[in-house]
């Protein structure tokens, strides 16, 4: 039995890096410290895709890596416009090969932010993002706002490690010295812990942000008696808490990005933060879902200039989310093959988009079977990053952390699978050129 420390969790955007494991006979037998229940379940392992496979007559036939990789390369090589989608649950080293492959094919590359914090990225395109690392929150923040997010269930270690419950330099009393405001449409587990719970009407985030902005900028006279289901007195109370705080941190989730005014909600959330900054130190951060969704945005940006929904068919990067984003591309039937890596559109895309995805050849690269596997034509199992493969990831605050390799495996890492597909495609092109 070997104890392994400083293990980095490859589940959610918290990227906890203080996990302690017990490993025996190339198997994780116990999670001793650090992980939440969901992270623990991933570390202890579950059902894997056993073998590479190719769909024939509606059934997946097991095959070798060589055969599956060759078939995948053929599909992409023959395609006139392919979609390479996913990327958020793998490492940056794989992302880099993905961008190269996209460029080589003149394909469209999109990632799960597109159906997640894509609206947040659009807002950052628009106004920027006043933010900080999570350690800043831990050491300084005396007022925490969770808006349209339920970390108690979705990012289970978030409050303990980084925000309301954590202890830091100026926050040595932990939650005793802090206040927490939760804004949501229903009383979630997180809301139950809050000092103030602001229950807003579905889809009224924009209006509530506007009201708070108005108050913080000295225009409370224009705020009506009730905004988005929130009484004015409560808005004044929250604004007052902001004014009296030394450091206010707002975290927001899908409840803000996908309701009402969508990306304009986030623009307004950021404008609220700017207004708060006139009175105190104020920062804001999206609660990113996958452990490396921030990373795929980073890699795409430094390599192509743009964070997601990148069309390389012109030979250079073209960015127009809403047109080149995966769901829209599929909805219009505007691609003739797809490679899905480290994600599951089968479970998350709108039905109309999935109809087209089910029609075209689909390659799936993933350690685990999921609804996408049900219609994938080539299935390539991968090593689990953070357990069987190492690599760089970006936490939700864009702090880069290196995943560790804990166990040996015969599964290939994503990076290698992609590199081999790219090599095959280049060989095919060279052969045709002859």
């Amino acid at each position, binding site marked *: 039995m070997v104890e392994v*420390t*400083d293990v980095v969790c490859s589940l959610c955007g918290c990227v906890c*890096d*203080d996990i302690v494991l017990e490993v025996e006979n190339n198997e994780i037998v116990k999670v001793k410290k650090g992980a939440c229940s969901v992270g623990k379940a991933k570390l202890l392992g579950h059902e894997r895709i056993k073998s590479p496979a190719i769909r024939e007559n509606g059934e997946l036939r097991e095959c070798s890596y060589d055969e599956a990789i060759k078939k995948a390369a053929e599909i992409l090589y023959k395609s006139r416009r392919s979609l390479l989608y996913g990327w958020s649950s793998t490492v*940056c080293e794989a992302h*880099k090969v993905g961008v*190269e492959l996209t*460029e080589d094919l003149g394909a469209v590359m999109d990632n799960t932010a597109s159906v997640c914090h894509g609206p947040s990225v659009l807002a*950052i*395109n*628009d*106004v*920027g*993002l*006043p*933010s*900080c*690392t*999570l*350690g*800043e929150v*831990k*050491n*300084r923040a005396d007022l925490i706002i969770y808006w349209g997010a339920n970390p108690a269930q979705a990012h289970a270690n978030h409050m303990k*490690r*980084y925000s309301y419950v954590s*202890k*830091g*330099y*100026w926050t040595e009393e932990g939650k005793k010295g802090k206040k927490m405001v939760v804004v949501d449409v229903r009383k979630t587990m997180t809301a139950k812990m809050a000092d103030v719970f602001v229950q807003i009407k579905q889809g009224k985030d924009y209006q509530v942000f506007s009201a708070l902005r108005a108050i913080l900028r000295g225009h409370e006279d224009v705020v009506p008696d009730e905004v988005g289901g929130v009484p004015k007195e409560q808005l004044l109370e929250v604004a007052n808490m902001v004014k009296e705080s*030394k*450091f206010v941190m707002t975290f927001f989730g899908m409840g803000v990005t996908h309701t009402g005014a969508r990306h304009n909600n986030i623009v307004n959330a950021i404008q609220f933060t*700017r207004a708060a*900054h006139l009175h105190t*130190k104020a*920062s804001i951060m999206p609660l990113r879902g996958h452990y490396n969704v921030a990373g795929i*945005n*980073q*890699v795409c*940006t*430094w*390599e*192509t*200039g*743009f*964070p997601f929904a990148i069309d*390389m068919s*012109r*030979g*250079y*990067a073209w*960015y127009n989310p809403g047109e080149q984003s995966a769901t829209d591309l599929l909805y219009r039937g505007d691609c003739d093959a797809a490679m899905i890596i480290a994600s599951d559109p089968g479970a998350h895309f709108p039905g109309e988009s999935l109809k087209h995805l089910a029609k075209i050849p689909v390659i799936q690269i993933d350690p685990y079977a999921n609804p996408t596997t049900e219609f994938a034509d080539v299935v390539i199992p991968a090593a689990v990053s953070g357990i069987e493969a*190492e690599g*760089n990831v*970006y936490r939700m605050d*864009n*702090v*880069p*952390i*290196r995943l560790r390799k804990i166990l040996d495996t015969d599964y290939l890492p994503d990076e290698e699978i992609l590199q081999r597909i790219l090599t095959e495609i280049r060989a095919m092109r060279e052969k045709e050129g002859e």
Partner: protein
Amino acid sequence: MADELLIRNGVVYDPINGVKGEKKDICIRDGKVVDSVTNPKVIDAEGRVVMPGGVDIHSHIAGGKVNAGRIMRPEDERKGVEPKTKVCRAQSGYSVPNTFATGYRYARMGYTFVMEAAMPPLAARHTHEEMVDIPILDNAAMPLIDNNWMTMEYVKSGDTDLLAAYIAWMMKATKGYAVKVVNPGGTEAWGWGKNCNLNDTVPYFDVTPAEIIKGLAEANEKFEMPHSIHVHGNMLGHPGNYEMTKDTYDVVKGIKPYRDRPTMHATHTQFHSYGGTTWGNFESKADAIADYINENDHMSIDLGSVILGDTTTMTADGPMEYSLYQITGRKWTNHDVELETGTGITPFLYSGKVSVHTIQWAIGQELALLVKDPWKVALTTDHPNAGPFIGYPIIISHLMSKKRRDESAEAMHKAIFDRAALPSIDREYDLNEIAIITRGMTAKTLGLHEHGKGHLGVGADADVAIYDMSPEERDAGKIQKAFLNTKYTIKGGQIVVKDGEVVATPPGRTIFVTPECDDKLTDEMLVTLKDKFAKYYSVTFNNYPVQDAYLPNPYEIKAPWRSS
């Protein structure tokens, strides 16, 4: 493939070796400059200007803040798109180009080394990930070690040796090159939305920025560090800051450098040479700063010269970017980094129709022209803060041509004639001086001349720029054009640019410094540092240092502890 190359009959400017425009052959074998060659491939440089590869001392090209600038500015990315070629990856961006474009464009200007100016230690992996993706250029990065709680605590207690041990550990942990200082104390204060003057007390830490700078300069000289501390002082960009700038320079006066180099490099000095008390009576004080540099030998500076047009400003000086954003009301990104530093980013348009911008534009060039010894001056735009690096040839053409400067001044705000000195300066740089401020001085100040950079002596890296111009050329437009796209750029003996086109994209090396520190001292320092990790950092001590995997092409420089 020929391992030998002969550059024949070029007019060579190699200031480190005292070569000032001599007709001379350059022999190259296996990536190095050699005495002679036997069976070389020949490049005919007849009558053209030949210089060592350019060495940029200060440019923001890689890492979290550069990428945050890109994410915030899709409109800037759209500006610079160029399709992929057989050799080159797709390019995007103007003031914040993607990594590939960064490598290609620098190489086309004849540059072969660029120093990333500010690396937040906690995000060092990010800087390295991007540097690996910048083709052709050798590179290095300077970790920010000034607003760090460890630094301030050791400065307060006066433990210079322990501070040195901390610097050594950080340099190794980040694979960094030199100690970077950005608004010391002020960026920590920005954690609470505040800022610091040079002699203010940093909130909660009971030290002053002046004490931080002095402490770091003393600790830096405990080692044989190739570079001095590299300082962005307090109150950057504020009217009337020139007095504080001089006071900052005075702080390190008397500290003896380990070898013949300055004790402090003051960066983007243009932003620190402001007179007046408001934006209304804003004026150039480049003369006062230049006088100081002329009278003292412990300082070097780089210009931070302005390029007119739109750009993206970015710095670890969070409060400065906030002030700028409040002036313009444009986009603003901020990213404070726990226990260490911060980041601010906002777009900015330098307009020749605005008095303040016009004076800023003049100041950068005044500094170059008023400092008598070019070995104290480096050409920079603090890319992309005063303008993108792609504007260097514009500055070169202005420094070399009084006529060009007068033409530009005529078209700009008239404030240039009464609140700046530029129109009254007649000096013109010659090519030897241009070679000094773009490669000789920068390589020497960084200590890279001892590692093959910035010169063409035997044993040097075969990094060569051949410009398609005669040394007699006086036409500013033609000079600018020649410096934008080389006839040839050779990197490590390989032709990477030919006739202005990138023809090969070998990977660059990352150069880093390993200060060597006594184990006992390190152990004592680590007790304090590990406590910081246990209580205040959001990552563990063991997950913090940059792993070797991030430097596929490393080049290590050891900096021994000085026995004295």
